[in-house]
């Protein structure tokens, strides 16, 4: 098969779409006004920032005044969690509940808070990568300030029972935040219907540029100001607005949240064909629930090989993918997500994540399925672990 270039790592980042780029371009050279300025150039910028805010709000079922622009998803997570912790601590609530397999933007923020007098409970996830809402209920205490649970996992793509968890939180009078960076634009989200109090999102996962995100904060919730300075973002996050990026996010989220069902009807069969095709390789397993997962996500462990080698070989064949191996993270341990669903270290090292979109064609799927088995064989042939597995020897 002829070599192709296939970008199958959309969960890492996406290309800025042509429509987003075209929408942004005037704001660099022509409509470059400061949104705080009084003259028309500034007023126009402000108007367009507010139009983008409306688009983000509409995409989430929120009100424009509930949307705050940030520089990224991590910033939104940090603000929501640290902010809620600070506000609620004044009311004597110093306990946060999260899960063991959150994104590091959430986990490391929680670990930071633990050093500052906040107690954190990390609820487990099932071997399918799903959180049991009853575990949240059991973990809630009198002094629980916040529950923060990701909408969909970034590595294994599993979609969590967000509405159920939110309902439990509200029964108990606890705030609920969700990191929806991976979910926005891929599954329907309505913050009001789902009872979400705060939601983080990121632009570059949905074809906007890197360096823009947003935090939805339900009206009535008072978060401390994140950046002190001017009156931007209603004084809560000072700093001159990144007008082109904000405008781009508005266009991106509008595009990403329309026709979700139609796009998924194209993506899911292709993704499933990839899953079934890759699982034909012996000693492989799908990580995470097969159905309750993001439409474009697959995560498969391939025994006897190590993930970074696999990614380099795929790259040489024109395929961009991701792995949860230690070597790709620069640490000794493989992905905490894969360990959290019960994978052994040596199985987690050999994981492959593909995240496709509707521009991943049937021919692309054919190509991946034609190239991957040969790469796996080649790596297994030089792997002492595979040799031991085949001889039935222990290799841990």
């Amino acid at each position, binding site marked *: 098969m002829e070599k192709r270039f296939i970008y199958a790592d959309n969960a890492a980042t996406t290309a800025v779409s042509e429509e987003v780029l075209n929408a942004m371009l005037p704001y660099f050279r022509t409509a470059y006004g400061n949104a705080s300025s009084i003259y028309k150039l500034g007023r126009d910028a402000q108007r367009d920032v507010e139009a983008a805010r409306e688009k983000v709000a509409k995409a989430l079922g929120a009100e424009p005044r509930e949307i705050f622009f940030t520089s990224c998803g991590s910033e939104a997570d940090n603000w929501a969690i640290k902010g809620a912790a600070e506000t609620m601590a004044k009311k004597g609530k110093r306990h946060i509940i999260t899960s063991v397999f959150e994104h590091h933007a959430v986990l490391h923020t929680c670990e930071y808070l633990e050093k500052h007098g906040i107690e954190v409970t990390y609820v487990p996830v099932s071997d399918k990568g799903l959180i049991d809402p009853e575990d949240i209920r059991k973990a809630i205490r009198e002094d629980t300030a916040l529950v923060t649970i990701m909408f969909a996992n970034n590595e294994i793509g599993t979609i969590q029972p967000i509405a159920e968890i939110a309902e439990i939180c509200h029964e108990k009078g606890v705030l609920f935040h969700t990191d929806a960076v991976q979910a926005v634009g891929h599954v329907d989200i309505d913050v009001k219907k789902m009872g979400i109090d705060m939601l983080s999102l990121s632009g570059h996962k949905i074809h906007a540029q890197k360096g823009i995100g947003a935090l939805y904060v339900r009206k009535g919730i008072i978060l401390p100001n994140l950046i002190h300075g001017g009156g931007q973002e209603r004084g809560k996050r000072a700093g001159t607005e990144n007008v082109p990026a904000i405008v781009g996010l508005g266009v991106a989220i509008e595009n990403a949240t329309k026709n979700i069902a139609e796009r998924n009807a194209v993506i899911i069969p292709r993704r499933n064909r990839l899953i079934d095709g890759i699982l034909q390789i012996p000693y492989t397993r799908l990580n995470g629930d097969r159905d309750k997962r993001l439409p474009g996500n697959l995560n498969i462990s391939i025994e006897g090989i190590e993930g970074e080698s696999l990614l380099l*070989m795929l790259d040489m064949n024109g395929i961009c993918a991701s792995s949860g191996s230690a*070597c*790709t993270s620069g640490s*000794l341990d493989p992905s905490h997500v894969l360990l959290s669903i019960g994978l*052994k*270290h040596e199985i987690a090292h050999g994981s492959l994540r593909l995240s496709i979109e509707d521009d991943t064609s049937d021919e692309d799927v054919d190509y991946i399925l034609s190239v991957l088995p040969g790469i796996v064989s080649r790596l297994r*042939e*030089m792997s*002492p672990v595979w040799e031991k597995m085949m001889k039935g020897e222990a290799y*841990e």
Partner: protein
Amino acid sequence: MLYSEKVLDHFSNPRNVGEIEDADGIGEVGNAKCGDIMKMYLKIDKGIISDVKFKTYGCGAAVATSSMATELIKGKPVEDALKLTNAAVVEALDGLPAVKIHCSVLAEQAIKSALSDYYTRQGIDPLPIIGEIKEPEE
């Protein structure tokens, strides 16, 4: 991960991959839990390493350092192989990212481990010659 051209070359076309059935020394270091295992096979004739093969489970740097290490000792006297350092492997590969230096340590140790096996088979205590082989600090 910023790999040099040489690392990528040795990763994509590793030299001396395989096994030697009648090897005179076999060494294995690392563990699957940490994500790296290297196995080295040596054929030694009259004190010269006449053949060397390896099998590696691990990242790009693990494969490349194994490959380079075998190249550096092939056809050389055992004494030279004993002196091979991880730094020499790194240098020959035009450098490694800092987080991958431990792979080069593993490659050095895989050779030492195989030589240790060789001496043991000869009835010679390898400890005074090679010293203790410690797992690399990651």
